[in-house]
């Protein structure tokens, strides 16, 4: 039995009269790559926003596994920075880097939530703070090397090519040492070559035991990467299963292609 690390049940989110998420259940197990797919407007990004604490869900449970205490804890009512500290990191559909900072700084800032340095320490620059800072730089270098961005280290983030900016978002998210990594359309806007590189990168990250939940429209990517797939439409889960099961699921085909009309 695999350890579930994210357990969502009965998640409902209303915006005024619109029910963006309707009684959604979802699980991610340790070390798994799980995909969340669905037509535009199905509520996938809303789901991410609820899980990461940006939106306050109307109803439902969101629990994340805590390795140190070997138990699930509820993320409800936490602020986004607290959720990140508990071990959930995400990227965005449209790139949201700190565009005026260098590549290295972008990664370092992701690392800061794992350190203890105080404001006083930052001002006094005592030995402990400096050691911690050196350690952050070292880990950030390791992450950048793994992601393949080390040669851009001192570039301003907004000057990077598009594909590299997307990878930098992943690097920054990894720097927070997440229990679960949420990727929101990581391949959006990438050319086929960049997409292949991205798939390799995600596989490499996953092979080190990183659990990943991703939203994606590129079906080839979804089918080749994920072990399990959840399909949403109009805020509801309409199917779940392995890539093969999903490919042949009538409800999924209906949601994407519509229904044949009997003449």
């Amino acid at each position, binding site marked *: 039995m695999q350890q579930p690390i994210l357990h969502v049940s009965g998640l409902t989110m209303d915006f005024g009269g619109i029910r963006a998420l309707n009684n959604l259940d979802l699980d991610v197990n340790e070390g798994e790559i799980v995909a969340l797919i669905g037509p535009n407007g199905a509520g996938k990004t809303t789901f991410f926003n609820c899980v*990461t*604490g*940006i939106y306050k869900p109307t109803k439902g449970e969101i629990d994340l596994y805590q390795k140190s205490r070997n138990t699930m804890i509820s993320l409800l009512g936490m*602020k*986004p*920075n607290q959720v*990140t*500290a508990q071990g959930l*990191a*995400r990227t*965005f559909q449209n790139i*949201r880097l*700190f*565009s*005026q*900072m260098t590549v290295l*700084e972008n990664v*370092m*800032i*992701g690392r*800061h*939530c*794992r*350190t203890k*340095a105080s*404001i006083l320490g*930052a*001002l006094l620059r005592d030995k402990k703070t400096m050691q911690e*800072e050196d350690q952050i730089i070292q880990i950030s270098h390791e992450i950048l090397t793994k992601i393949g961005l080390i040669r851009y280290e001192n570039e301003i983030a907004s000057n990077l090519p598009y594909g590299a900016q997307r990878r930098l978002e992943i690097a*920054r*998210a990894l*720097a*927070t040492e997440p229990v679960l990594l949420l990727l929101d359309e990581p391949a959006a806007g990438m050319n086929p070559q960049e997409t292949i590189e991205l798939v390799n990168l995600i596989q490499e990250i996953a092979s080190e035991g990183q659990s990943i939940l991703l939203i994606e429209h590129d079906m080839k990517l979804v089918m080749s990467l994920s072990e399990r797939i959840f399909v949403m439409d109009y805020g509801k889960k309409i199917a779940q299963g392995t890539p093969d099961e999903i490919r042949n699921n009538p409800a999924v085909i209906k949601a994407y292609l519509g229904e044949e009309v009997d003449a």
Partner: protein
Amino acid sequence: MDYFIELLFSGLSRGAIYALIALGYTMVYGIIGLINFAHGEIYMIGAFTSFIVATILTILGFPALAIIVLAGLAAVIWSASYGFTIEKIAYKPLRHAPRLSALISAIGMSMFLQNYVLLAQTSDFLPFPQLIPDFDFMEPIAHIVGSSDMIILVVTTLVMIGLTLLIKYTKIGKAMRATSQDRTMAMLVGINVNRIISVTFIIGSSLAAIGGMLVASHIGQINFYIGFIAGIKAFTAAVLGGIGSIPGAVLGSVVLGLTESFATGYVSSDYEDVFAFSLLVLILIFKPSGILGKVDTQKV
């Protein structure tokens, strides 16, 4: 030539003071997009705090250096706690309200603080003790540059260098920059944004308090209204340089200080403000975002 240099230095020290206050405006604007109109009052409270502490310490017979340091420290701590509290009371509850509401709240806070000091102290000008002595080694050039002008320049320069290092190289500085660029994303990488906002107010208020003490000692008198004028000027300087930009605030302040100084010296002190604001109008006509301001392109 001496006259020119004299005006140059008086303009620079004036600019330095504006810069100390303008930084508070620009940092807060950069982080939460609000013009903190109560910031001038923080400066005034800094001046009053140092006045009270310095007076008490003088009576108790402390040495001059100890008085300067302790009065400055008291002003910084007291003003910083005001800045911190104002943000918590007047701005934090309105963080998701329309911008105009927070602006009104800021103006209200400014009036409240003015009237509170008016009632607690007096409406008269109070003589402020000269904290900065006339140094002997400054004697040969004292007719051009006063000791307190010099101290203002030195202290301000040191503070600016410290601030630049803080923002560039420390964890808290990176977090501040991240918060100003994208607040939601900053939260998502684990930054406690509320804490960063508080720190910004504390730093801005501390700078204003230092400015308050330096100016009060330089001019020699204070009352409850000094914050309003200084605040408006520093705000002008921040807009001139490009609001939200830290180097912009410093540059704008120096430009404004020099303009005022030369206008006073060569034309008439009656026209000081006319020149200052004409400059603002001119720059905003040709570069609406200020000298170093970034053009804000809205992505859809």
